[in-house]
């Protein structure tokens, strides 16, 4: 295992300490390992929190700040955080206007967030939750755990955070988050596996001429293993199911998000974006906003994910609104 770490068991704590050292003007770190916006709670503002396993940086801790999250709860690497964290975060950010939990759809995340929400409500906090489940690689069904929450989460946190910053109430913020979920779809692929520090070896073996299509963000194998293909072919394998699923139709305006999984350089992501833009154009889908880079990662995994969000004026307005976090910043 080749990583810039000291001891596997200290990765999350030391990274948090480094984040705090690098961004003391944005965040504070409180027990039990929660990242809280420096000036939270803000009078009258709805609190927006999220959380999940570590190893996806900058998500979620890097999105704590003005116009995005009020707090983030990082679990162990790839392991949902514990209810104590979400309870503490909810209390830390609730100004009395209530708190929205943005939850990625994983059994563990759902259960831990639900437990925390119950405890918080028992202590008199108004809490709502929206589950992000945007991964079209997973067939949805009543009888399964359903789709994973992936790239759409980043967009939801930005847009919902802007609405909360603008003073929207809990019901409005919650409905807006659901609206993002209803209009966003994603799919990812991997060229390499990744190594959970505590595990010490790659989660899966893969040959030099193979790739995994339909992976999530936890180093898990994907829906299928394929022979390595060109960037254009790979982009089609990801974007076609996304476009067909919602479906995105001619005349739609979209935000196109090409995300790196951690080990893939920007130069390759732009090659993927190039093909994605051609595909959208060919279908009459207009990209009016874009995001290209590593925002929701899977440790050092090489690969990418594509996310499309159908935009209307409201979503566009909140996407464009100022945001000032360590991981995403503009207009401020």
């Amino acid at each position, binding site marked *: 295992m080749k990583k810039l770490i000291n001891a596997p068991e200290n990765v999350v704590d030391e990274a948090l300490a480094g984040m705090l050292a690098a961004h003391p003007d944005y965040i504070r770190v409180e027990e*039990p390992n929660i990242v809280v916006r420096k000036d939270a709670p803000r009078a009258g503002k709805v609190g927006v929190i999220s959380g999940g*396993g570590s190893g996806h940086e900058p998500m979620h801790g890097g999105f704590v700040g003005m116009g995005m999250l009020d707090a983030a709860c990082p*679990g*162990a*690497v*790839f*392991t*949902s*955080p*514990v*209810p*104590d964290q979400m309870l503490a975060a909810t209390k830390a950010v609730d100004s009395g206007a209530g708190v929205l939990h943005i939850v990625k759809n*994983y*059994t*563990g995340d759902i*259960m*831990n967030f639900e*437990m925390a929400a119950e405890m918080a409500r028992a202590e008199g906090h108004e809490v709502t939750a929206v589950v992000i489940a945007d*991964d079209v*690689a*997973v*067939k949805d069904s009543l*009888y*399964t*755990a359903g789709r*994973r929450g992936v790239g759409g989460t980043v967009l939801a946190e930005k847009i919902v955070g802007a609405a909360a910053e603008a003073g929207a109430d809990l019901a409005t913020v919650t409905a807006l988050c659901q609206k993002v979920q209803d209009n966003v779809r994603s799919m990812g692929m991997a060229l390499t596996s990744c190594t*959970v520090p*505590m*595990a010490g070896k790659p*989660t*899966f073996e893969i040959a030099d001429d193979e790739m995994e299509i339909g992976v*999530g963000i*936890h*180093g*898990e*194998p994907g*829906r*299928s293993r394929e022979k390595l293909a060109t960037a254009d072919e790979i982009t089609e394998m990801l974007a076609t199911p996304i476009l067909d699923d919602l479906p995105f139709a001619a005349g739609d305006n979209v935000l196109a998000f090409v995300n790196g999984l951690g080990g893939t350089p920007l130069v390759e992501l732009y090659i993927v974006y190039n093909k994605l833009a051609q595909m959208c154009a060919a279908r009459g889908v207009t990209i009016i906003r874009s995001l290209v880079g590593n925002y929701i990662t899977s440790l050092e995994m090489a690969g990418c994910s594509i996310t499309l969000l159908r935009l209307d004026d409201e979503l566009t307005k909140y996407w464009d609104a100022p945001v000032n976090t360590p991981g995403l910043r503009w207009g401020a």
Partner: protein
Amino acid sequence: MSTASSISYDDVVAWVKLVAERVHAEREHLTDLDSAIGDADHGINMDRGFTAVVAKLPALPVGDVGALLKGVGMTLVSTVGGASGPLYGTLFLQLGGGTAGKAEIELADFATALDAGIAGIQRLGKAEPGDKTMLDALLPAREALHVGLDRGDTPSAALDAAVAAAEQGMVATIPLVARKGRASYLGERSAGHQDPGATSSHLLLKAAADAFYGA
């Protein structure tokens, strides 16, 4: 009244410690199973949780089986995370609820408490038998336990039967296509691998048999 087959407070402490020991020993195996169809952390999660439990033991009220098991459950909930944290946490919280205030329990009490614990897991996780989860080990075990007790088997025999059923259920998860948990994301590819949680559930029950009635 206390019988030779009663499970004492110390037996329960011994059980918890034995589980911690074996989870630690099986950590890599459980994580490898989770690597195949999950995210390579089940052994790490369980080890983190039960290490915390053992550290917590001295702080738990002595002599009260229920309080002890509640403490274990709360510690698991607060330290494991993932899917297994709330699930095993609930299991132990319910075991504690069903044995509250008792200095020692009979296997029948344990069985009833286990019913509640498994019900809690189902409430929380909404999994069905055959979904390729820990329930595929726990449900057959519970079944066998009750059959044995109703039939008047010795507690030791009844619990051994439960462990055997759990092991069968665990192995039976191999061909299953997962419908719950991370493994479900793999679809057909999840078949051919043993479920990590079913494996840790079998470990839990085997440790109980060894701790309660001597290995």
